[in-house]
């Protein structure tokens, strides 16, 4: 049953991926003509207009371009950077792990902060603690991450003469410093997600706590931690799993900002530099990798959802 559902869900993911690939593909076709000229003159990406068009893959009928592009991608060729001439895939091979590490740290912080506070807020509904938690969550969704990042870099430098390291340390050079450099940006990146997770945990847990079987658990004389953590939280967390997919997309967005502020050579920074250089093959390649990742994450999340909650069958 579950396998059948997983297969069905996989089939639905295919058209989403295809449409997303068309969107990514169309990006380069939207470049205004004068910009192509500008790219030639300013960045010297090509000798003349024909060569420029050929490099951007604009020299053939549009459907042929798409089919050829997809064919190359299927063979693992994401194109070459116009700026450096290096294959996009090779560049991503070492940059993607940096972003994934940052994202993973952020997600861990988001879950470790969001769920416990959400539980406390729900169990102590309408008390001071609940209000503080809820206002704090909205504040967490309101404060721009790039501002927090800027303050964390600037203020300690002024008052304590200390600033976070902005040189990248590789894993094989110094494992401890390698992990440590992700903690601060990861925490800041996770704040907004923690707020979302806290809000959802709270509302879901409140709903579960009102159900009959929970009343039964209370009347059996079970202690509060057991009722809340063992009987209620398990069911309340199922919908929280589904928003993890959305949160991962949010966190990937944030990597662009935090990698720039903290000098981490990840995929987000790569994308930002590519946008500054108008390096369209790189932009397309990164977008495709990101969309693919997110469609896959959502697929896994949906199947996990069905596995966790057997009542769900679409």
């Amino acid at each position, binding site marked *: 049953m579950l396998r059948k559902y997983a297969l069905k869900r996989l089939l639905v993911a295919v*058209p*989403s*991926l295809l*449409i*997303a690939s068309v*969107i990514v593909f169309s*990006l*380069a076709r*939207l*470049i*205004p003509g004068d*910009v192509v000229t500008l790219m030639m003159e300013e960045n010297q990406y090509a000798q003349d207009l024909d060569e420029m068009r050929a490099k951007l893959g604009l020299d053939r009928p549009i459907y042929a371009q798409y089919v050829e592009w997809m064919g190359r991608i299927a063979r693992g060729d994401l194109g070459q950077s116009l700026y450096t001439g290096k294959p996009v895939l090779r560049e991503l091979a070492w940059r993607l792990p940096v972003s994934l590490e940052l994202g993973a740290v952020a997600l861990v912080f988001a879950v470790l902060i969001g769920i416990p506070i959400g539980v406390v807020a729900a169990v102590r509904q309408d008390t001071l603690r609940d209000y503080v938690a809820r*206002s704090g969550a*909205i*504040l967490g*969704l*309101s*404060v*721009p991450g*790039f*501002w*927090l990042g*800027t*303050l964390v870099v*600037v*203020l300690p*430098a*002024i008052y304590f003469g200390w600033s976070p390291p902005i040189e990248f340390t590789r894993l094989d050079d110094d494992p401890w410093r390698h992990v440590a450099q992700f903690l601060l940006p990861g925490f800041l990146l996770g704040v907004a997600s923690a707020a*979302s997770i806290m*809000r*959802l945990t709270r*509302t*879901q847990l409140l*709903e579960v706590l009102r159900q009959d079987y929970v009343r039964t658990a209370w009347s059996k004389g079970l202690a509060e931690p057991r009722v809340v953590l063992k009987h209620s939280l398990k069911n309340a967390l199922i*919908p929280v799993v*589904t*928003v993890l997919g*959305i949160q991962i*997309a*949010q966190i*990937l*967005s944030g990597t*662009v*900002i935090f990698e*720039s502020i903290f000098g981490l050579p990840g995929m*987000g920074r790569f*994308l*930002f530099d*590519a*946008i500054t250089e*108008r390096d*369209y093959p790189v*932009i397309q390649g*990164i*977008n495709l990798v*990101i*969309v693919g990742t*997110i*469609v896959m994450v*959502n697929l896994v999340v949906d199947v996990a959802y069905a596995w966790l909650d057997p009542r769900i069958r679409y």
Partner: protein
Amino acid sequence: MARPIEVEQVERWAVGRARPGALRRAVAGAGRFCRRKPLGAFGGLVVLALVLAAAFAERIAPYEFDAQIPDARLVPPGAEFWFGTDNVSRDIFSRIVFGARVSVTVGFSTVLLAALLAATVGITSGYFRGRYDIVVQRIVDAWQSFPYLIIILSLLAVLGPGMLNTILALSILTAAANSRVIRSATLSVVENPYIEAARAMGSGHVRIMARHILPNVAPTIVVVATISLGGVILAESALSFLGYGVPPPHPSWGGMLSGSGRTYMYKAPWMAIWPGVAISLVVFGFNMLGDALRDVLDPRLRGGAR
């Protein structure tokens, strides 16, 4: 441009369609809203302050946003310059006040455009269902699977930076998310007998959607639009911070935190503090107002994944 959603207007939705002589009821309703949702009322106040600052920036700000004041470089906050001055001798308080104009313009135009798009897509998708719905929803899925900042930056890389392009890119993305909610509201409205009655009386599709469905999903449209406003303003500031939103010399709060100013922030931390405070406060206000509105207008939306 959209008028701000004021508490009275909001309450009018909650107590039913406005009838002649309903002013007193609206005022009483506003009072009730403030008592029941103090944080929402606080949010409304922040939003009102933002709109006033944007509308009367010339009267409120002591200096022009690009005026370079002689002998006033990097002055700390004080009696003369409330928020201090920046590295090219401009008054930061004045720039914050004028920056409200950018936030209001981008925020409200984006949300208005997105509401139009989302209502069209959401209502037709929920009304016609079938193959059209499936195709449209797959496209919405695909848009939503892009992380917002990444697709918008990529779009702006192609279209070029600027206020208009920022609004266009942000509204397409906001519309995709909002159309989902409007579609599900439409799905439940379509089930009502009065829709069938309208059809039996010979109303066409357009008439049914415009006269019978739209008024019934309008509260949902207002709520999702208000809730998205905070996010849109936050996104605009992030884009301007990265240098792809509203170009200088227009003072965008996000832009004030980026670029050449960054190196001076070590000497003048107030340059880094005030724009961020402004963004946080305004987005906080919109989020509070949006949450309270949702509880009052459309409790079904409570507990949404946000």
